[in-house]
């Protein structure tokens, strides 16, 4: 293992873990803002309860995103100093703008979103939620602009020492692949977030608890995915066309296509063999490849053999990751359509089998996002700035032992974090939306005590804090049925 491979492993690992949280929080931040607005507008308690419930889960995910992102902003220097040296004039400002416009905005208003609802009015709370949601979108925009520039560099020139210099900022930010990438990623986040909301609501429906909020949440989420699942496939197709134009080798690896040609087949399954430059066990449909890649029957598509062996990415990784992403996209689309059919028949809240399906679909969006980023990043190899700067030249002069040690620590700490998040998240989900004190619950409320163990028919909230005790008047105001 040399330093480059270890650094790539470490970056892939820390990046893969990091991207889970933004994917979740970009979608949920907008959902919370939407709920806060609806609560302000309609004054219906169901929106308030949903908003508080999702704000709390959002807060946990947000903290995860912040600290794992902090690690990345320094890893670019610690592990990729060659890259930093070459591109700092171009990408430095984009990262700086991300911190300046997005991170501060999120950090400045997250306190009000999480703890300030009772202290500021509903209007001010809605404003804070919008600012946080806007911050997540801004952050996605800047960082995707930076990544897109690495895929499709524009607006900069490279001097004899290999240092890039900015020529035109609009061209750098709005580089050829940027609009497609940012919309595809934001849509993926909204879709993933909506499937998480759908899954959690479905769990509540299955448990027959918190029914009012569960139905509302489920309904909202199913409308959202019905809109976004087809849109995401369209956006993905558009990005595919863009990739064919600007990164033909990556596209060839995604398709497992070795020979350039007209009217190429679409490979459904194969085992790409890089040594033999061919696919084993290939199963393909003639002409379909050209049809969806060029939108014409005999369109030309470039194959992998068009470039030298040392300029090709690892084909199997890109090939399979792409199929995982597309497969999940199609599964989510079918879930969305099924939901619409059930709604049309008035069985959306009663079809229990479908609620199981919705719970099962909860993690799929995250898997698709990871697979998609694997396609785009592994497909860019062996270049770090596509076609110009090789990854091997970008690494830092750091010893392999040091990287191994940090990588080992990250693996341990991040996995613990994920487990802790899932554990506490699951407990929040089990507990469900918080009850407003003094309001009788319309539906069954079983709220667990200190250890997250449900006591059916238990009395109102014991907010877990050992020192908290309900006074007699509060006890009296809550009438168990």
């Amino acid at each position: 293992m040399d330093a480059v491979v270890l650094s790539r492993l470490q970056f892939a690992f820390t990046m893969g873990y990091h991207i889970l949280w933004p994917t979740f929080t970009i979608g949920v931040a907008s959902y919370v803002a939407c709920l806060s607005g609806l609560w302000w507008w309609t004054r219906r308690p169901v929106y308030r309860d949903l908003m508080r419930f999702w704000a709390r889960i959002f807060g946990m995910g947000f903290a995860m995103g912040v600290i794992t992102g902090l690690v990345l902003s320094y890893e670019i220097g610690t592990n990729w100093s060659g890259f930093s040296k070459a591109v700092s004039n171009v990408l430095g400002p984009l990262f700086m703008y991300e911190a300046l416009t997005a991170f501060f905005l999120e950090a400045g208003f997250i306190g009000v979103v999480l703890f300030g609802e009772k202290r500021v009015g509903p209007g001010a709370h809605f404003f804070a939620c919008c600012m946080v949601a806007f911050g997540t979108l801004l952050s996605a925009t800047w960082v995707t602009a930076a990544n897109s520039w690495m895929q499709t560099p524009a607006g900069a020139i490279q001097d004899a020492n290999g240092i890039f210099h900015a020529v035109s900022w609009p061209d750098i930010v709005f580089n050829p692949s940027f609009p497609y990438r940012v919309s595809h990623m934001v849509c993926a986040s909204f879709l993933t977030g909506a499937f998480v909301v759908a899954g959690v609501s479905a769990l509540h429906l299955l448990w027959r608890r918190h029914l009012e909020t569960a139905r509302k949440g489920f309904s909202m989420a199913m409308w959202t995915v019905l809109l976004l699942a087809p849109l995401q496939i369209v956006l993905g197709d558009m990005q595919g066309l863009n990739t064919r134009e600007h990164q033909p080798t990556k596209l060839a690896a995604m398709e497992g296509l070795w020979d350039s040609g007209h009217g190429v087949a679409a490979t459904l399954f194969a085992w790409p063999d890089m040594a033999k430059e061919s696919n084993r066990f290939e199963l393909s449909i003639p002409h379909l490849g050209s049809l969806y890649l060029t939108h014409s029957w005999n369109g030309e598509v470039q194959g992998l053999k068009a470039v030298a062996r040392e300029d090709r990415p690892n084909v199997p990784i890109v090939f399979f990751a792409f199929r995982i992403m597309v497969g999940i996209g199609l599964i989510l689309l079918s879930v969305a359509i099924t939901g619409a059919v059930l709604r049309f028949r008035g069985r959306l809240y009663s079809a229990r089998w479908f609620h199981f399906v919705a719970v099962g679909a909860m993690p799929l969006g995250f898997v698709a996002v990871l697979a998609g980023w694997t396609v785009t990043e592994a497909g860019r190899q062996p270049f770090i700035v596509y076609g110009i700067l090789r990854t091997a030249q970008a690494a830092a002069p750091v010893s392999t032992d040091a990287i191994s040690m940090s990588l080992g620590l990250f693996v341990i700490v991040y996995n613990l974090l994920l487990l802790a998040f899932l554990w506490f998240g699951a407990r929040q989900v089990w507990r469900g939306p918080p009850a407003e004190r003094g309001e009788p619950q319309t539906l069954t409320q079983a709220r667990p005590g200190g250890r997250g163990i449900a006591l059916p028919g238990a009395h109102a909230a014991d907010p877990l804090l050992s020192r908290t005790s309900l006074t007699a008047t509060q006890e009296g105001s809550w009438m168990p049925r």
Partner: protein
Amino acid sequence: MDASLMFAAVSALAIVIYVLADGFDLGVGILFLAAPRDLDRDTMMASIEPVWDGNETWLVMGGTLLFAVFPAAYYVLLPAFYLPVMMMLIALVLRGIAFSFRLQTVRYRRVWDFAFAGGSLVAPFAQGLILGGFIGGVPMQDGVFSGGPFSTLTLLGVFSGIGLVAGYALLGAGWLIWKTEGATQVFAREVGHAALLLVALMMVVVSAWSALTEPAVASRWFAWPNLALLAPVPLVTALVIVAIWRSLWGPRDVLTFQLSMILFALGFGGLCISLWPYIVPRQITIWDGIADPQTLWFVGVGIVIVMPIVLAYQARAYWVFRGKTRIHEDDSGYGERPAIQSRRTSAQNNSLHIS
């Protein structure tokens, strides 16, 4: 005033803001396990909960700003300090998550207490290792770092680490004296003395050590006429230390915090004087390490327009949660977090005055 000077000033400002802002909330973490009761710990955490995230964002801001404006500092120093940087990052990760999870559990509260306090202790120590190694200088060849993973870890770094931990603890104590009352405040006043003595000692040790081992630093301070011109810096620092000592049991709750920030600013000023005009000591000056003019323009426009707005709403966040932090026995509608109530109260004259 040329661009290098302006951006050096902006970068220095970002670093100072980070050190002061995250300094006190790391300091609260350093003092965390020493606090006498769980209630004190809950109050301490509640006092920084609404602002820590904004404070830590300055670390990202500082890093990305260096990347954009003084790239050489970024791509030379970060690999040079690989181990302490990673130590700091992992410590900050553990600590940040403790904010989220500590209040959600009763049985494992102690585990998160340790994660929070441990992270808050390791991160400043790692920053001190970086600072000490930075003063000592990094080996370079062909414009990149050319040492091993341990070549920048020095005894000076260890002293700086202890000094930073103590300094942050002092800032944290000052913050707690300002934001809490009763037993928590008494604890902060008491622990402030120890922190102050340690800071003062380490400031002397690090300054003397730098002057003795780095001839360039010594000639900067002791050559005539610098000696006369720069003499006020250590003298004022000594006065501030005395003033902090007196303020710890003084009637004005906010004074210790203010003076501690001044002490940090003086220390940072001294550091800048020692190392001027290098961004990588004795290797790269601020004029050699500056980015392209078109990059600086793009960055500068953003800073001029956005930075004041950022400072304004960060200040507003402190204003919203102004006054003494209290945990009152009610839930804030979100179930399980102690609400952070704040009211403006007159400073309490402590009856436990024992000076």
